[in-house]
């Protein structure tokens, strides 16, 4: 991963699976991203935002005992772009989130990076 597509991007990972989270973190860091938080449960967004800019969030839908839809909505309200990375089918998305950027597991590392890069690119 020599293309440092996400260079300088501050990214949060919400993923309940340790290995997947670890993998994603490595992937994003290899692409030059600054992963500011990796968490298995929904984080306190306000606190994270207080710490600094958030360029994008990579989200798993299934958080074990809950889903991340409410968190995705919160991100929308705060105009923070996000990318779903999930083992579920696209049909699981609730109506108001249909059309959100979405990548199905297992995903190619390049695909994840490209997805997030397009999100941050459209931001600036």
């Amino acid at each position, binding site marked *: 991963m020599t293309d440092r597509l996400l260079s300088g991007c501050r990214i949060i990972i919400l993923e309940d699976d*340790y*290995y*997947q989270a*670890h*993998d994603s973190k490595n992937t994003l860091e290899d692409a030059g991203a600054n992963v500011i938080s990796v968490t298995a449960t929904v984080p306190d967004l306000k606190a994270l935002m207080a710490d600094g800019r958030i360029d994008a969030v990579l989200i798993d839908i*299934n958080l074990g*005992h809950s889903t991340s839809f409410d968190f995705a909505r919160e991100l929308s309200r705060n105009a923070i772009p996000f990318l779903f990375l999930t083992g579920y089918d696209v049909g699981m998305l609730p109506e108001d989130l249909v059309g959100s950027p979405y990548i199905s*597991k297992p995903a190619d590392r390049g695909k994840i990076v490209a997805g997030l890069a397009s999100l941050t690119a459209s931001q600036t």
Partner: protein
Amino acid sequence: MADNPHPLDQTLFAAAFQALPHAACLLEPMFGAGGAISDWRYIAANERIGEFIGLRDVEGQTLRGRWPDMAADWMGEFAEALATGATVIVVRPGSQHDKVYETTLTPLPFGARGAVLVTIRDASSEHRDREKRREADARYKLLFDSIDEGFCILEVVFDEAGQGVDYTILEANRAFNAQTGLDDAVGRLRSEFRPDLENDWPANYGRIALSGVSERFERYSNSVGRWFDVFAFPIGDQAPYRIGALFEDVGARKDMEATLRHSENRLQTLIEASSDLIFRMNPQATLMEQVGGDSLLGDVGEESNWIERLVLESDRAMVQAVVDDAIVRRAPFQFDTRVRTDDGVVRWLSCRAIPVLGDDGAITEWFGMATDITPRRSAEQQVAHGAEVLLLATEIGKVAVWDWNVETGDLVWSDEHFRMEGYEVGEVVPTYDRWAERVHLEDREACDIKIAAAMESGEDYVNEYRICPPGGEVRWVSARGRFLYDEKGKPVRMLGAMIDITQRRREEEWQRLLVAELQHRVRNLIGMVRSVARLSAPSHRNVDEYVDHLIGRLQAMGRTQSTLTRSPGRSVDLGELVREELVVHAVQPDMCHVDGPEVALSPHAAEIVTLAIHELATNSVKFGALGDSGHIRIVWLTEERDGKPWVSLRWQETAPRGKTKNNRKGFGRRLIEERVPYELDGKGSFFVHDTGVLVQLEFPLSDNGSILDSRI
């Protein structure tokens, strides 16, 4: 008087004059200037006139002088009698009351002047008689003309054989003229004014006149074009033979009779042709007589006590009550009853009867009809039976049925409908609103829209929605209905059925979740395999060794999966899991001590713990106690931390001699130290002592399963 040398009373004529039976006097004219008669002078008056009107000693008196008030009235008549030479008779009331005198003025051509003999007679009684007769005549004429019936008096003309051949109308009243159309018949022969009249009219009158017996007959006259009712009676019993005849034009009555007869004929035909039984009954309604129609009951021709004879025992009381009530009220009655006919067959009859009331308001008889309604009744029973079967079937099939009268808003629910809505059967009166208030709030609008659309389009109403009985479980139902319309296309009714599909819905939902979960797990698994493969790589220089490790890890993961799949959604016992994992690594029972309470692990925790034990056992075989004559102690306990149950597991190896220290952060160690805190919200520690490895795993026993596990 110088002109009369012989006084009258001295002559024979004077004597005769005096002896006249009538009151009499003689007067001669007196001429005035111009030769006109100016007065009359009395010459003589007999004694009778003196008695009669007090006229005495008249000599030298004049008419004007004697009767100054009345003389003028008489001057004209006296002059007339003298001038014409004809007798003048004057009838005048006298000066006395109620006396009428007849005065005769007889001119006497005697001498140059002439004279007038006056005789007076009392005509009072004659006059009164005549007056009376005139009044009677007038009254008779008035009566004659005022009667409605035509009346005439005629005189019959006979031929030689004594047969009446003609007649003359002598008198006729106004009604006669009007009824016969003969205006100018009086005084004429029938053959003149009505030559075309049938000859039997004079023949009849002749017969009546000769026989002297009055007759009454009805006769149609072609020539007049009318029906007459005639009463003819003879007047007198000898020639001339006269007949009095009273005529009445009975055309209208005749027409009415003809119409009535025609109508009666039709009615009778109708009664005879009727498939109903027409009957009459006595005022007490005990005896029945058939008057026409079908003989539904066999022979009921003669009067018979019908209730006892025909009506089935079980219906008798009802029939008697209805009839008794109608008799009291003098009003029509109606009832349906079963009767046994003469041939023993039981039939259903519908009976109706109305009372015929007399002038005093009492019932004189009953008229009625009975219709055989057996076919209708049995059809009704079949329908009722069919409906019963249908209802039972719907009850058995747990189908809720409704029938909604759109116009009145009346709604009928089957028993199951009540139950499905969470009501006791009959607990409430069903209405649209009652139904709607039980529909799940989120589904209510869609329900209303679908019903309105079905009503509008005529297509079947098909809907699935939720019912929320208060305090009960939310139920899913599937409903289908159809609107019925009148001939103008207006919706009048809606029929429908509904079944409970809660279970089906659950299963569908479950299936959907299963598929989604399966997809999720498979994808996650692949992702994890990739991660595991990548994480396993750095610690091995040797491919065979790497493959062994990788396969071992994948097998451990596979074991968890198979355990979970065997009992999906169930927890896994920690002790069982540990022992099974040790068996897989061929750890001898005397080399280990496993102890701890029963702990139910969530599938997620089980997966991690399995992999952790696998890693520890693999490492131990390779580097630690299990590779030597060492011993492993695996114990756990549960405790409460901050109100949550935690499990705390310790893996403690005791090896006789120290082996190569391996402080490198390998796969197993990361699992314990990083994955446990990350995924299980717990703590993991990994120490390598001289005597062996000491591992501590602590995590809360939360329901940390997948969506699938947390469901149902």
